[in-house]
C-alpha cells in the first residue's frame, strides 16, 4: 500500500496545506512537525510560484512573502530531506506546472523521490495535459493527483478512472480561500468518482475553515483539505504560529474524523 493510500485507510483523512518558506523554512518545518503530531493524515507542501493563478488573496500573499524571503525549490527539497528523518506522514507537493517544468521534469521528480515525497498536485495541469507529467511521476513513485471541480460535468468519469493517489474535489467555483458556505452538491460529485473508480479516495478542498465544514465535507467524502485558514494563522502570527497551527489542526482533524 502506498503511503497516500495508507493516509485514507484509517477513517476520514484531514489534509492541511502550508506554503513553504512563509515566513521562513524553519517555521514551515516546525509547522509540518506540529501538524503531523496533531493528527494530519497527509500534508500538502506548497512550493511558491510568482503568479499562482488558482489561489485567492491569502495564499497569493503567502507566495509573495516566501519568495521575497528567498525560498527556492532546492531549499524546499533540503527541508523535506531533513524532515523525513523523523516525519512519516505522507506528503505531496502542490505547485504550478512551470516550477516543475522549468526545473526539469525528471530532475524535479528524482529529487522529490529521493527526499521522500509521495505525490504532486499541479492545479494548472488538467486531464488533457496530464500525460506530459504522469509517466515521469510514475517512474519516480509519486502519484500525480487529479482535480475535479463543480464544472467538471461529463469529465468526472475519465478523470476518476485515470486518477492516482486520491481525487482532489474542488468544492466551489473560484480560487482558494475561506468561504462561509459551500453550495455544491459534493455528495453527487463523489458518487460519480466512485462509480468510475470505486477504490480511489476523494478529499474535498477550497473554502473549508471551520470544524463544522470539515466534519460535513469529510462525511460526504473521504477527507477534508484546508489551506487558506492555516496560511492565515501563519500570516498573522509568523514565527510564533506553530502552537496555534498545532491546536487548529488538532481541532479540525478531530472534526473531520467525526
Amino acid at each position, binding site marked *: 500500500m502506498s503511503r497516500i493510500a495508507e493516509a485514507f485507510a484509517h477513517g476520514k483523512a484531514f489534509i492541511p496545506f502550508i506554503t513553504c518558506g512563509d515566513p521562513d523554512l524553519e517555521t514551515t518545518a516546525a509547522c509540518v512537525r506540529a501538524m503531523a503530531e496533531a493528527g494530519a493524515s497527509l500534508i500538502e507542501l506548497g512550493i511558491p*510560484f*510568482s*503568479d499562482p*493563478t*488558482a489561489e*485567492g*488573496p491569502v495564499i*497569493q500573499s503567502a507566495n*509573495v512573502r516566501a*519568495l521575497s524571503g528567498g525560498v*527556492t*525549490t*532546492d531549499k524546499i527539497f533540503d527541508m523535506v530531506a531533513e524532515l523525513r528523518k523523523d516525519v512519516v506522514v505522507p506528503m505531496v507537493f502542490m505547485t*504550478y*506546472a*512551470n*516550477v*516543475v*517544468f*522549468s*526545473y526539469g521534469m525528471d530532475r524535479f521528480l528524482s529529487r522529490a523521490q529521493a527526499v521522500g515525497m509521495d505525490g504532486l498536485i499541479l*492545479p*494548472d*495541469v*488538467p*486531464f*488533457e*495535459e496530464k500525460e*506530459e507529467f504522469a509517466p515521469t511521476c510514475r517512474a519516480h513513485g509519486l502519484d500525480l493527483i487529479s*482535480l*475535479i*471541480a*463543480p*464544472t*467538471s*460535468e*461529463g*469529465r468526472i468519469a475519465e*478523470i476518476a478512472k485515470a486518477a492516482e493517489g486520491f481525487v482532489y474535489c*474542488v468544492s466551489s*467555483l*473560484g*480560487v482558494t480561500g475561506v468561504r462561509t458556505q459551500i453550495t455544491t452538491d459534493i455528495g453527487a460529485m463523489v458518487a460519480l468518482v466512485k462509480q468510475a473508480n470505486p477504490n480511489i479516495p476523494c478529499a474535498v478542498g477550497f473554502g473549508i475553515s471551520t470544524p463544522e465544514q470539515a466534519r460535513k465535507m469529510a462525511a460526504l467524502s473521504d477527507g477534508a483539505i484546508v489551506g487558506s485558514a492555516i496560511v492565515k494563522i501563519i500570516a498573522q502570527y509568523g514565527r510564533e504560529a506553530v502552537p496555534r497551527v498545532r491546536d487548529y489542526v488538532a481541532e479540525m482533524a478531530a472534526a473531520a474524523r467525526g
Partner: protein
Amino acid sequence: MSKGRFGIHGGQYMPETLMNAVIELEEAYEHYKNDFEFNRELTALFNEYAGRPSRLYFAKRMTEDLGGAKIYLKREDLNHTGAHKINNVLGQALLAKKMGKTRLIAETGAGQHGVATATAAALLNMECVVFMGEEDTKRQALNVYKMRLLGSKVVPVTTGTATLKDAVSEAMREWTSRISDTHYCLGSVMGPHPFPTIVRDFQSVISREIKAQLREKEGKLPDAVIACVGGGSNAIGAFYHFIDDPSVRLIGCEAAGRGVDTFETAATIATGRLGIFHGMKSYFCQDEYGQIAPVYSISAGLDYPGVGPEHAWLHDIGRAEYVPITDDEAVDAFEYMSRLEGIIPAIESAHAVAYARKLAPTMDKGQIIVINISGRGDKDCAAIARYRGEEIVE
C-alpha cells in the same frame, strides 16, 4: 499531445474549473467560424463600425529618406478605438453573444484592449469588467476614464507587479468564479487553446487586406512584413496570410526596454526560456526556478513576460525572425514617423518602425516593406514627452 499545439507550444494548461468553459468556447467557435450569418454580421461590424478595411498607405517621405525599399504603412491606427484590438474584440464579443453570454471580462495593459472591449460591450449591450494593473491605471488614467464612460467597471489589480501579467491572472481568477454568464475576452494570441487560434483568426483580416491592397497597388507580394510583438496579436494578424509565401520575410519586433543585456527588458524570444504559464507552453522571461520575471518596457502594451505560442513556433522553424528594439530606438522612431509622415504611431508600433529604419536602406529600391501601424500614439504623448524631460499637464 493535447489540442491547440503549434509545434511543441500552446496547449491547455488551465485549472479543471475552466476546462468545460474552454471546450464550450472551442465548440462554439468551430461552429460559428463557418456560419454564414455570423460572418455576415462580423463583416458588417468590421466595415460599418470599425472602419475596415484599413488603409495601406505608401510612405513616400520615409521611403525617400531611408533610400532603399518602398515602405507601406498598414493603418490599423485608423480603426475605431485607435488600434487593431477592435478586430479581435468584435469577433469575440459577437461569438460570446451567440453563446448566450451576457458579460465580458478582459485584461488590459495600456488600456487599448480594455477600451476596445468596453466599446464592444456597449455596442452589444453586454456587461463588462476590465482588470488593469494598478500601476497601469495610474499611467493610463485617460483610458480608465474612457472605459468607465463606455459603461464598464475597471478593477485595479494590486497583486504581483500590478501590471499586465497580473491583470491576466486576475481575469483568469475572476473567470473561475463566474463562468455561466461570462466570457473572458482575452486580448492577445495567448492563453489556453482555443484563444491563440481564435484571436489569430479575427486578426488575420490585417494580412488578408494587405495582400489584396498590395496586389492592387504593386501587383506583387511584399518582401518583408514588420510588426511589434508583445503577446503578438497584431503581428500574427499581419503575418498570417503570408506564412505560406516563403519569399516574404516576417519580422516581429520585441520590446528590449533598456536592452537585452539588462534585467529591464520584455524581449521574450531574445531572453526567455521555454515554460508553461497563463495556459500555454511558450517562451517566457523567468528565473532558474521558473518564477516569472518582472519585465520592463516603455510600452505598456508590450510589457508582458511571454509570447503567443504560434510566434514561438514560427521562431523555432525559422519562418519568422524576432528582433529586439530598445526604448531609445522606439522613441526615436515615434518622433521620426510623426515628423516625416504626419502620423503619430503608438509606442508599440514605433518598435516596428524602428526596425524598418534599419532594414529599408539595406534593401533594393524595387523591394517592398509593409509596417503594421497597430495603433495610434495619442495615448503615449505624455509618456514620450516625459522620456524627453518635458512634463505635460493635461
